[in-house]
């Protein structure tokens, strides 16, 4: 086994140890350690990606050298490595872009807490991505939930705590369902590791026994993780949660935390339950329908908002809907589109959250879109970044959003029963997206109704500029050089089976 194969484990454990170490460090040092950790994870994940691409196979890494049916395993294939790389890029850029706000929004003595939580979050996300064991997945789901909850309430105001408790309640419902479903699965298969469990599921399906329990497992697992990732109609916690956290936290929560659960769901579908069983169980149709409804409802609600942050948060509801719609198509092309959209949305939504702050900073701190008039001139970097993000969400060609929509549509044509609904849903939600995002872009570039003082025209900090620029580049790369990424996703999905 090559040395690179250790990297997934190293990155999980490194992130966790950084979190523990940060508890005795002061804020600025915790920050440096955290940035170092994310960079190191990025480097290691890219190495794993290069390695798996080169070998063309996935590998399992058994912890403590216990053989298959007993031990605890990590699995790394192209898709896992790609996701880990993508997530660490987004994490790094979100931290960079929201850095100045972390130190103003969080009490000075508690800044190191923020970075502890980020470290733990990173560790649990990586574990969710790489794990090959269902119970490990459950444990890290809970760690992820706790860390995310901490990030939500890090501002320590009433908003944060109420938002956190609502998030916790929904999340715990979700993890409870996940836990009971995996207990039942363990009951009927006798395994928690993904490969033997899948074999057992295959045997059960072939023998025709335990039909109802298997259906219940599939349904509970899907619903549990759907609640946690905020699929309509379980989206009620999203706007408050994303809207009021510190910008770096909003960006991380919206683009990474919910995606971690979706990735886990995809992995469970392929690696445990067997995708064809999931497709034939019809649970997938429910995901499809709720995804579609979420796309429309999220956009309509976003149009009704006047607060920019809530508008962006509701747009997340719609985008999560896109992803579930892709999963719900029940084809490999649909799944590939959904995975690609995970990246698109992560790159775009964090850009929007990071740049939106720059805009209302220069508008007396007001976030409703009418107060933002002319802010694109007062803070040019943030204005350009926001415009690019909005255009990408709308699906402007050459940006990442266009490619994901194209992939969804192409995938839709391959599944005849769902084609018309999918494309109509895409069309309606795209036009709705265009309405509120272009309204925002126009309003930040239309002349202000009154003069703003000199203190309201300060330019973005250099970190924000660099982060925005890099985010824009990521978007352009996803929009223009999508083919290698799509190929990698396809290869990764094939390795799942």
């Amino acid at each position, binding site marked *: 086994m090559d040395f690179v194969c250790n990297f997934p484990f190293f990155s999980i454990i490194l992130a966790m140890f950084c979190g523990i170490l940060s508890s005795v460090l002061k804020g600025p040092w915790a920050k440096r350690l955290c940035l170092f950790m994310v960079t190191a994870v990025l480097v290691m994940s890219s190495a794993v990606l290069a390695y798996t691409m080169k070998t063309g196979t996935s590998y399992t890494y058994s912890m403590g050298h216990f053989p298959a049916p007993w031990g605890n395993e990590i699995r790394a294939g192209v898709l896992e490595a790609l996701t880990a790389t993508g997530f660490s890029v987004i994490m790094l850029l979100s931290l960079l872009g929201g850095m100045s706000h972390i130190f103003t929004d969080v009490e000075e003595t508690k800044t190191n807490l923020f970075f502890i939580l980020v470290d733990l979050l990173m560790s649990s996300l990586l574990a969710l991505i790489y794990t090959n064991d269902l*119970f490990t997945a*459950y*444990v890290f789901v*809970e760690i992820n*939930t*706790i860390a995310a*909850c901490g990030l939500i*309430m890090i501002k320590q105001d*009433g*908003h944060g*705590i*109420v938002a*956190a*408790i*609502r998030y*916790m*309640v929904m999340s*715990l*419902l979700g993890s*409870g*369902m996940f*836990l*009971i479903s995996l*207990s*039942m699965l*363990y*009951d009927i298969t006798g395994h*928690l590791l993904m490969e033997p469990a899948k074999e057992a599921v295959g045997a059960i399906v072939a023998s025709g026994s335990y039909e109802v329990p298997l259906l219940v497992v599939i349904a509970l697992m899907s619903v549990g993780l759907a609640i946690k990732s905020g699929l309509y109609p379980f989206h009620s916690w999203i706007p408050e949660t994303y809207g009021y956290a510190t910008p770096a936290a909003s960006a991380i929560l919206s683009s990474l935390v919910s995606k971690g659960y979706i990735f886990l769901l995809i992995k469970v579908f392929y690696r445990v339950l067997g995708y064809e069983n999931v497709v034939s169980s019809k649970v997938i149709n429910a995901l499809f329908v709720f995804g579609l409804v979420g796309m429309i409802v999220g956009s309509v609600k976003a149009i009704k908002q006047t607060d920019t942050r809530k508008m962006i948060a509701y747009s997340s509801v719609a985008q999560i809907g896109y992803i579930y719609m892709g999963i719900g198509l029940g084809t490999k092309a649909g799944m590939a589109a959904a995975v690609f959209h995970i990246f698109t949305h992560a790159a775009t939504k964090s850009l929007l959250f990071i740049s939106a702050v720059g805009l209302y900073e220069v508008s007396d701190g007001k976030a409703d879109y009418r107060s933002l008039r002319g802010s694109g001139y007062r803070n040019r970097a943030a204005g350009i970044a926001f415009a690019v993000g909005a255009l990408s969400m709308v699906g402007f060609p050459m940006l990442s959003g266009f490619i994901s929509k194209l992939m969804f549509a192409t995938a839709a044509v391959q599944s005849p029963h769902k084609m018309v609904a999918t494309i109509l849903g895409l069309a309606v939600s795209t036009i709705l997206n265009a309405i509120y995002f272009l309204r925002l872009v126009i309003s930040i570039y239309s002349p202000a109704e009154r003069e703003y003082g000199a203190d309201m025209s300060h330019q973005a900090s250099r970190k924000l500029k660099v982060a925005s620029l890099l985010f824009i580049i990521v978007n352009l790369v996803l929009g223009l050089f999508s083919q290698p990424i799509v190929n990698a996703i396809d290869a990764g999905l094939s390795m799942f089976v």
Partner: protein
Amino acid sequence: MLAHLAANMEETASMILFGIGFTTLLLHKNLIKKIIGLNIMDTAVYLFLAAKGYIYGRMVPILTDGITDPAAYTNPIPDGLVLTGIVVSVSVTALMLSLTIRLYRRYGSLDLDEIVMQWRKEER
């Protein structure tokens, strides 16, 4: 049907408990009751796992009297899962309780609806 349910008494009980816990967590407005619901829900899962792991007439899976035949012992994995699960649920409960204390100090209420209403008022 009833005979099946009676034969699988532990599983039936754990499913009922899970339902009770789930609905309490979802529907109750009082935060403390929500937390109690959470614990009932988790405990139901542990009951389910423990019931599944226990094989009638076998010993606790600790090597006793030099008997190495695995057929003499029950399955240790569910017990391990239960222990891990308890750790997770304790930490989550602790977090929820601390959040509740903070909310109570700030808003003087444990009713989530009332808290949200006050919070909306503050926003204006």
